[in-house]
């Protein structure tokens, strides 16, 4: 940025605002900070701010941090007529990123569903409004087929190498010799190429998924808070979505292995009744349900190939 020299001015301003806004609470402070930061960035982008003088003018016009926070604290003080104020039964929480997390899960873990899981992930990625087109392209191109496709390819390479051993016994039944032989059909990669492919196809997608989810989180934090209707007794309500989530996560894997629990996870994260902690608990349980059959199948296959 061309006016990096005067950046400390912005930093100082934002720091003062952040300190002044502390009494507002995390959510409203975050929203205020994001708004002001966006304003300064937009002023730079528009060319209005191009040197220290214009930057100082901009910060002057924004006003004293204390004054801005005072305006935020005016809520309900009577200074502003507020006939349509928020009803008391509504509280606010920060915007969730269920869609983005689900997308990342489908692109990585979900790719065990082979083409279908990955495709669902791609559709979810493109329906998110928290990622730029560039990020969406990266998400799509970095995961062709997803990590599972790499594992499957590796499986084809390794699976056709079968080893066997036979013992040669003498007349007394004692082992005198063990002959082992390995028959390798199909193809195999040189180790360095295999490792590179593994990193590119398995590790990189997972890292990219993590970074994209974190970016989505940051952007969601800058978004307006989401109203949450609190039921009179303050208890968690059970709607169709929540019941579906529990059913899919528990018995879903009997009906549709892998697909059932994944759908259950999607339902759980789409719920606006459950808290974040509850959703993570559901995710942990769901992952177990998801992983157990996979481990079982892999175990069974490797047992049979012995």
């Amino acid at each position, binding site marked *: 940025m061309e006016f990096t020299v005067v950046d400390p001015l912005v930093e100082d301003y934002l720091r003062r*605002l952040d300190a002044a806004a502390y009494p507002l609470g995390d959510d*409203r402070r975050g*929203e*205020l900070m994001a*708004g*002001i930061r*966006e*304003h300064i*960035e*937009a*002023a730079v*982008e*528009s060319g209005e701010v191009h040197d220290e003088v214009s930057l100082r003018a901009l910060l002057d*016009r*924004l*006003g*004293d*941090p204390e*004054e*801005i*926070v005072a*305006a*935020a604290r*005016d*809520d309900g*003080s*009577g*200074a*502003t*007529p*507020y*006939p*349509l*104020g*928020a009803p008391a039964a509504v509280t*606010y929480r920060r915007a969730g990123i269920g869609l983005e997390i689900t997308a990342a899960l489908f692109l990585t873990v979900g790719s065990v569903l082979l083409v279908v899981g990955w495709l669902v992930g791609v559709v979810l990625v493109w329906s998110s*409004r*928290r990622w*730029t*087109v560039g990020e969406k392209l990266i998400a799509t191109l970095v995961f062709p087929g997803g990590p599972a496709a790499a594992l499957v390819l590796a499986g084809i390479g390794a699976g056709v190498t079968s080893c066997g051993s036979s013992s040669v016994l003498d007349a007394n039944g004692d082992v005198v010799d063990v002959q082992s032989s390995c028959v390798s059909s199909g193809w195999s990669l040189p180790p360095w190429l295999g490792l590179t492919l593994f990193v590119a196809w398995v590790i990189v997608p997972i890292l990219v998924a993590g970074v994209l989810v974190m970016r989505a989180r940051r*952007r969601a934090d*800058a*978004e*307006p*808070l989401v*109203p949450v209707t609190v039921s009179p007794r303050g208890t968690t309500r059970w709607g169709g979505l929540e019941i579906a989530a529990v059913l899919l996560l528990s018995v879903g894997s009997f009906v549709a292995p892998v697909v059932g629990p994944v759908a259950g996870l999607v339902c759980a994260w789409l719920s606006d009744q459950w808290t974040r902690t509850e959703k993570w608990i559901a995710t942990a349980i769901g992952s177990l349900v998801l992983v157990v059959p996979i481990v079982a199948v892999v175990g069974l296959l490797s047992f049979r190939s012995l």
Partner: protein
Amino acid sequence: MEPGEAQNPLTQLRRGVIEYCVLALLTAEELYGFDLVKRLGESEGLVTSEGTIYPLLSRMRRAGWVTTTWRESESGPPRRYYAITRSGQHALDGFTTEWRRFRDSVDAVLGTGEGHGVHRG
């Protein structure tokens, strides 16, 4: 707030009407924060500290008068656009009627003895 605190007699008035000015700007088109603040700034004396618009927008959103959506921008990160809701439109309509009546009354009283032509003075 103590009556003596309002040094500028227009401070309180400004505070009361600015959110309706925001709503009025949003009836024409959806705007993002920076644009909205610039538009308000084009009318003299409407906004003193531009930064105070952001808490106001946040409050209006929580009251359900405006909604926000993220949109891609050609350069830089996505931007948050504000749009007026039906409830916001309703509030604006109510205010507009009230304001005309109020303005005419004030003008009439202030204009006593000065004849005509003091509207929007």
